[in-house]
């Protein structure tokens, strides 16, 4: 099984990074001039690397031999019985470091080596991307600095310890809301000052071109594998696929292989937090407006002056007031349907999966499961009990046990 790094879809960006065109589409490159050279170099380097069979071979070898990929596709029978439709789980929680993130960072770190840079920086929310980046840096012998919002370092202390053990320097960021968006700001500031020898391992399919494309390409193995696996298992494609959407890397990684299959419905579930009415949520596509954040035009939670509104989610990994531009375009074009689930719905799904399947998911992934619970009746009505929904279980829940203990009073 090889990753289809160089395959195209009808939803790709143009060569200036626009999804859906510059007029009504999303993406682009809204960045300081100081970083333009680096972004252009990265774009060229990535275009060359993904077309180079030796790079693709190396990437596949590392994924297979080091990261435990491909991840299995699992028929969740007891959960399926509960929901009345067939639920297939793409088990990214079984990857090395416990999440889909390892695909992206190993690819970006391999590219960093190819470009001759010696240091990587990363931002992280839940810590999954930070841990994955620290892991990739250790694997490739690169220096690593991880920026993490102070709020997140407190609620994800275990991952902070893991990053430090792996040799990374973790810098808590206490500006702004002290969460993921501020960690991205701080990482960008570092990058402006260190761009000659440092690569920014961007953690999600957002940011300026070429990051959304680069991260999508590296994460698309999720969907490429799942497509082959479901065809082998069922002899046909699923009726629908679903994933949680914060920045959107696990979701676009799953979706990409199915974008040009019009019969496959695509669902994304954002973090509804305490509910829209409270203003405490991270439902960017549902509740945001078009704007520019972190280098791309996309949907942004913002006030009437264009100031970013702080997001909220029980899941640090979804607690982001922007979203990758591909999702913005998929939403606007109608190819994918995005709704949200609340913290409570996500935690109910978290417990349900634990008790029906013996799998403790990341709270991010629990949002996708909660969404699956919501849409299952409709799918059953339309397609009967054989309706098949493929859900990306993007990560495992070890890191979230502190939150779970508090939530469930364990």
């Amino acid at each position, binding site marked *: 099984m090889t990753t289809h790094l160089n395959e195209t879809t009808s939803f790709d960006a143009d060569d*200036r990074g626009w999804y859906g065109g510059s007029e009504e589409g999303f993406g*682009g*490159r*809204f*960045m*300081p*001039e*100081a*970083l*333009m*050279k*680096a972004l252009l170099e990265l774009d060229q380097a990535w275009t060359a690397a993904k077309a180079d069979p030796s790079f693709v071979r190396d990437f596949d070898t590392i994924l297979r031999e080091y990261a435990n990929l491909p991840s299995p596709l699992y028929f969740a029978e007891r959960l399926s019985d509960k929901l009345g439709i067939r639920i297939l789980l793409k088990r990214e929680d079984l990857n090395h470091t416990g999440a889909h993130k390892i695909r992206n960072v190993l690819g970006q770190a391999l590219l960093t080596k190819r470009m001759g840079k010696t240091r990587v920086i990363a931002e992280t929310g839940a810590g999954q991307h930070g841990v994955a980046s620290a892991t990739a840096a250790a694997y490739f012998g690169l220096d690593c600095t991880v920026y993490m919002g102070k709020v997140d370092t407190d609620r994800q202390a275990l991952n902070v310890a893991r990053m430090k053990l792996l040799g990374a320097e973790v810098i808590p960021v206490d*500006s*702004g809301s002290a969460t993921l*968006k*501020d960690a991205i*700001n701080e990482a*960008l*500031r570092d990058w*402006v*000052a*260190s*761009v*000659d020898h440092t690569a920014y391992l961007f953690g999600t399919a957002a940011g300026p071109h070429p990051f959304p494309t680069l991260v999508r390409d590296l994460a698309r193995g999720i969907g490429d594998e799942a497509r082959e696996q479901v065809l082998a298992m069922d002899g046909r494609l699923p009726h629908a696929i679903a994933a949680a959407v914060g920045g959107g890397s696990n979701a676009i990684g799953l979706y990409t292989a199915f974008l040009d299959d019009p019969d496959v419905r695509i669902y994304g579930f954002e973090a509804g937090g305490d509910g829209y009415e409270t203003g405490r949520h991270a439902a960017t596509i549902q509740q945001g*407006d078009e*704007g*520019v*954040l*972190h*280098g791309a*035009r996309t949907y*942004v939670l*913002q006030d*009437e*002056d*264009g*100031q*970013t509104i702080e997001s909220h989610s029980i899941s640090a990994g979804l607690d982001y007031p922007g979203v990758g531009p591909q999702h913005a375009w998929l939403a606007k074009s109608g190819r994918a349907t995005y709704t949200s689930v609340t913290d409570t719905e996500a935690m109910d799904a978290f417990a349900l999966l634990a008790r029906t399947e013996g799998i403790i998911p990341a709270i991010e992934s629990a949002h996708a499961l909660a969404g699956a619970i919501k849409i299952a009746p409709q799918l059953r009505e339309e397609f009967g009990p054989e309706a098949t929904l493929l859900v990306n279980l993007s990560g495992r829940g070890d890191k979230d046990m502190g939150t779970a203990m508090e939530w469930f009073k364990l």
Partner: protein
Amino acid sequence: MVQAVTTAVAFEKAAAENRAALVGYLPAGFPTVAGGIDAIKAMVDNGCDVIEVGLPYSDPVMDGPTIQAAALQALQNGVRTKDVLATVEATATLGVPTVIMTYWNPVERYGVEAFARDLAAAGGSGLITPDITPDYGQEWIAAADAHDLDKIFLVAPSSTDERIGLTVSNCRGFVYATAVMGVTGARNQTSDLAPPLVARTKAATSLPVGVGLGVSNGAQAHQIAQYADGVIVGSAFVRAILDANGDHKAAIAALATLTKDLAEGVRR
């Protein structure tokens, strides 16, 4: 409606006096809207030739901790985009060319054409745009041209000659050269990256070139004035106000002293 003075006029006047222009930055609404206008007046009275009014923004990726702290304070005090335009109007009334330095999203949110229209009506001269380059700024370029506004894009030490060419061909007023690879903030030494950047920029345009990021005293201003047409100072002004700890009179006095030092530096 206040009649705008273009920044080119200030640079020409300084050049006629055989010196560099002094460009001073302060975020609007800092420490308050009225207090900020007072502060800018002190900067103009003591020798600033051009004023940059900062539009406080929640996610200022190019700003260091000093300016970010000021912008955050202004936002927490409730400053709005309309207050920024009011600050521009008050500054322009003093007869000094006034530009807004802003990240892009607040402009897009206001409406690019509407922003250009209202900025021009307030007597503003144009925009400095740290996170939008000409290749992604066509909508702004069109609106600025329609309202005779200056388009001040940035060049950086990392800019290739090709990108410098692209940037200066889309600039009007002056070109903003970032002297260091890094965020805003006063530094002990001026950058050795600045002179070659200014030389490369001047080779590509006859527009004046201002150098910013890191200047905090008259000696540094003097040094930069040897090779640049303008010396841009931001964090040091903000620091003067922050250090006054809410004593408005002391802040104004400190700003006056600092501005005189810098103004003397560009004339030395």
